[in-house]
């Protein structure tokens, strides 16, 4: 076994690998970019090596820098995690040349599965069910049309080197084939530098189900059940679960056996995932094979009790698999939510910056329900602009699917994040969606159920509970103000008069929001999660306060309320609108971003609407315009500076 391994990755997956390595008694080496100097994976590892500037091409994608880090620290093996270099055969080869073990499949297997056409050929040869189609490059639209007619409509035209939905077109007629062929080809050339496309049957209302396999260097390979990942947004997975609510044991066994056959056909020797597109009738067709650890691997770990990272390390070290297919048992149900720094109210725009609040729900096992939170962040840490904005993977496991979903919903309500925008309200809304709960899934789920995107507005009951929580929390913050107390809760659309009074058993009696309610809670000011009982029913919500304004997030609804004593509320409405003059003279960064250019100097006269600066976040550049005409009085940030949301860049006279 290795004594020291290097993790060529960052974020939650680096932390997750370090935890298993530590449990196995293996020392760990983290590599990090300048942007990650204070990242959690750097803290957790036994050693850490700076490998370059923030852009991934200068650091996490630099094969030679990682090899140099291995040599400098004496690391004997490298775990690549997912993304970055994890599926680069060249990386595995270069490591081998340097006598360093790649904790992943051999380069031949990576190459064999890396190309969609080649991998489909291999799948056909291994007897794996594939989508009816033409296994080969298509050169002309006429050829595409002829093949489509043979397969039967609808068909999918796909780029051979594709991914992420790029270079894909659905066609229902010969005309659409001709048009789609041209577009897919040009998009593939632009996106991947490879314009090869192929045609296959388009499965309507499909589901995405994948089989986890694990293999060793001795020809052994088993499958560890499936994961269903049909809830996707723009081909990015949002929720995952294991097992799939669709599969029956027979289908599972067939999919597993075919996956193992494919792996063995290409001499696979590590963890891998065989992805299938699955019809609602449980027909399944090979999609592709991912030759790495998947983001969503924890759901498999929770239902099988296996540690996939440990199995990968042992396999890379040459140990035979410690389990046979008959040892694999699926136990209970696991659900995973991907928590991202993105704003669901603004079209899922990435959000970066400092995590002023990060309070995940408690991990562990309570009454047969497991809560696991894989993360690479901590309170006070940064979500850098340079990388994938994942914050955490929240996983719950319980004996049944319904219980696992309920546990996930509760855990999401008890997850408080501040300082950046995040998608927890959206995930929480999903978790309560009846179609999700019923397991009627398809890859088009989100497009069908959220055609207008996510809205934070909740039901009347959501608003009532949020009002009760805000009123009770206001009283908890100001316990010296005697009861009874009249408050006004003012939301975006309406105001409600409520009266707080002493109820029975120390509870607070709140009137004015429907029927009088008894609210009891041990919540203390400063806690980011409110827990209590409303009319005897347990309620949990994340809450934030700014002045007298509260934001209550629960069950996918986000309710924003200003809470004032009745007199203050009435009087404040008579006051003139605040003068924004001072703020208007300041140019602020609208989001956490990098200041990529400053287009003016101190003393310059500028016109209203003139471009003053350019910021960059998540590879997107945005110009910032002068809010009004004036003279640049002070410049407070220089090009290259990382800006917090709201940070002042310059001031005008």
């Amino acid at each position, binding site marked *: 076994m290795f004594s020291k391994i290097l993790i060529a990755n960052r974020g939650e997956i680096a932390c997750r690998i370090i935890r298993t390595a530590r449990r196995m008694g293996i020392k760990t080496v983290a590599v990090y970019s300048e942007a990650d100097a204070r990242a959690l994976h750097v803290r957790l590892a036994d050693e850490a090596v700076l490998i370059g500037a923030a852009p991934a091409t200068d650091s996490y994608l630099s094969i030679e820098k990682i090899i140099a880090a291995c040599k400098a620290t004496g690391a004997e093996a490298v775990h690549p995690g997912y993304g970055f270099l994890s599926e680069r055969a060249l990386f595995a080869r270069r490591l081998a040349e340097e006598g360093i073990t790649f904790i992943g499949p051999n380069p031949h297997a990576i190459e064999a599965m890396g190309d969609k056409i080649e991998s489909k050929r291999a799948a056909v040869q291994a007897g794996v069910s594939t989508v009816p189609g033409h296994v080969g490059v298509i050169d002309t639209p006429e050829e595409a049309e002829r093949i489509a007619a043979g397969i039967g409509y609808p068909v999918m035209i796909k780029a051979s080197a594709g991914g992420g939905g790029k270079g894909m077109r659905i066609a229902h007629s010969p005309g659409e084939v001709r048009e789609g062929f041209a577009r897919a080809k040009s998009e593939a050339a632009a996106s991947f530098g490879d314009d090869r496309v192929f045609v296959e049957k388009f499965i309507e209302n499909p589901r995405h189900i994948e089989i986890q396999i694990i293999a060793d260097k001795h020809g052994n390979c088993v499958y560890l059940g499936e994961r269903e990942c049909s809830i996707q947004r723009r081909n990015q997975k949002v929720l995952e679960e294991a097992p799939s609510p669709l599969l029956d044991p027979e289908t599972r066994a067939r999919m597993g056996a075919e996956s193992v056959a494919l792996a063995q056909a290409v001499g696979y020797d590590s963890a891998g995932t065989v992805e299938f597109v699955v019809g609602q009738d449980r027909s399944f067709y090979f999609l592709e094979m991912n030759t790495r650890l998947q983001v969503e691997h924890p759901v498999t770990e929770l239902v099988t009790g296996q540690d996939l990272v440990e199995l990968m390390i042992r396999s890379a070290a040459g140990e035979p698999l410690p389990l046979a297919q008959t040892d694999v048992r699926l136990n209970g149900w696991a659900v995973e939510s991907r928590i991202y720094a993105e704003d669901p109210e603004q079209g899922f725009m990435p959000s970066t910056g400092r995590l002023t609040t990060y309070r995940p729900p408690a991990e562990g096992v309570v009454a047969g329900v497991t809560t696991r939170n894989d993360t690479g962040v901590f309170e*006070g840490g940064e979500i850098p602009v340079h990388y994938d904005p994942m914050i955490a993977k929240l996983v719950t496991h319980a004996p049944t699917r319904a219980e696992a979903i309920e546990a996930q919903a509760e855990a999401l309500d008890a997850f408080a994040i501040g300082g950046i925008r995040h998608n927890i309200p959206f995930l929480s809304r999903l978790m309560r969606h009846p179609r999700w709960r019923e397991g009627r899934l398809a890859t088009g789920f989100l497009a069908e159920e959220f055609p207008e995107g996510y809205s934070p507005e909740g039901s009347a009951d959501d608003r009532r509970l949020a009002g009760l929580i805000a009123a009770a929390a206001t009283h908890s913050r100001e316990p010296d103000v005697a009861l009874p107390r009249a408050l006004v809760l003012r939301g975006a659309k309406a105001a409600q008069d409520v009266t707080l009074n002493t109820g029975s058993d120390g509870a607070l009696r709140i009137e004015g929001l429907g029927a009088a309610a008894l609210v009891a809670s041990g919540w203390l000011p400063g806690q980011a999660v409110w827990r209590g009982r409303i009319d005897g029913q347990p309620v949990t919500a994340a809450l934030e306060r700014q002045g007298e304004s509260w934001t209550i997030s629960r069950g996918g609804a986000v309710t924003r309320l200003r809470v004032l004593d009745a007199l203050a509320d009435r009087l404040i409405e008579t*006051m003139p609108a605040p003068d924004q003059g001072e703020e208007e003279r300041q140019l602020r960064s609208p989001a956490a971003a990098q200041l990529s250019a400053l287009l003016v100097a101190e003393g310059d006269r500028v016109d209203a609407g003139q471009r003053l600066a350019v910021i960059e976040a998540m590879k997107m550049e945005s110009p910032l315009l002068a809010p009004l005409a004036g003279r640049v009085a002070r410049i407070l940030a220089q090009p290259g500076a990382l800006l917090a949301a709201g940070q002042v860049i310059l001031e005008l006279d």
Partner: protein
Amino acid sequence: MLASSLSPHPEAARGLLTAEDRLRLLFDPGSAGIEGSGALRFGSGLVHGRPVLALADAGPGDPAVLHQRAAFYRRVANDGVALVEFLDCPPLTGAAGVEGLAAMDACLTARAALKGRGLSITALSGPALGPMALTPALADLVVMHRAAGFWSLGGAELAHRLGHEDDPEAAYGGAGLHGAGTGLAALGAADDVRLVLDIRRLLGLTRPRAAALAESDEAFTTLLPLDPFEGWDSAALVRLVADEGESLALWPDHGTALGCHLARIGGQPVGLIASNPAQNGGALDAAASRKARRFVDFLAGQGLALVMLLDTPGSLPGQAEEAAGALAEAAALRRALTALPQPPVALVLRRAQGIAALALGLGDARTRLLAWPGARIGLGGGSEGPEVPQPLSPNQTKRALIAALAGHDTPQR
């Protein structure tokens, strides 16, 4: 009940309330007793459970009104409670001659007698001009309406007539002048309601209150920039130290090399002084010393503890500082610290050097001194001297501050 006070009145358009509304809004609902007529309204009640007496101008004053005011000040002194006064008084009428002078002096004498006998706050939602302008100067804290508050010897008209000056009215006593320039106004408010709510908040922050302690103080570990000489914004540090992340910055636009905040730590109301390394690397200047001295005086008067969060390379040098009396201000700050009811707690983050370290009382054996790893404290300037031994791990900061406030031993003493 409130119909009469809520009816539209000319002041509302200017963001102003009536005297009665100011008093009603000040007190906890249901606790206010309001009396008086003519030029003054008197109020008594609770603010966050704390007994407070208040008065509010309702019309032009005269010598008789001044005597009424003086009598009220004496009542406040006698009761030993906090005073909030809303000053909104046009120039005195019928105040000429010895009678007016005597009435004004009686008023000032009674007002001055409140010093050290409870908290007194003056809110300026209107003019305080001429002789009446001396009254706010005797308050512990002054809060100004940004648009309507005016506090001046005589205003622009007088300056134009006698001094041949021709500047706008605000230059002679507006909230901008007293917020950033003289530093006499501790807070500025956009409108009258905000002004009253700020006073309520201020009074509330002087009361102890239970709050949750974060499970982890990891956020402290990322506050300082990796470059030891890079400036940084201490606002995030203040948020982490303060319970609930809530603090109220006093004199926020004046003497900005230091921040002075009211907050609670571990439920205990405290004053927080925080270096501002984003400005001149945190070097102490005359204005910041003066502000800090005022704040320390205020804390001493209120019996509140002081916590200092320091990152200062020393005093800011230069002719302007010498001319501003930086040395005298630093010495006055040091002297003021001796009047605090309990020894201050000081946490040094990177450095505290030279005259600044002395002025902030770090040399005093009674100061409960804490320091983060790598911090240097001494008489030299910049970052000289050895690192302090037994540093405090940043992720223990809040717990250590609470323990130090409770009088437990600190690592550096």
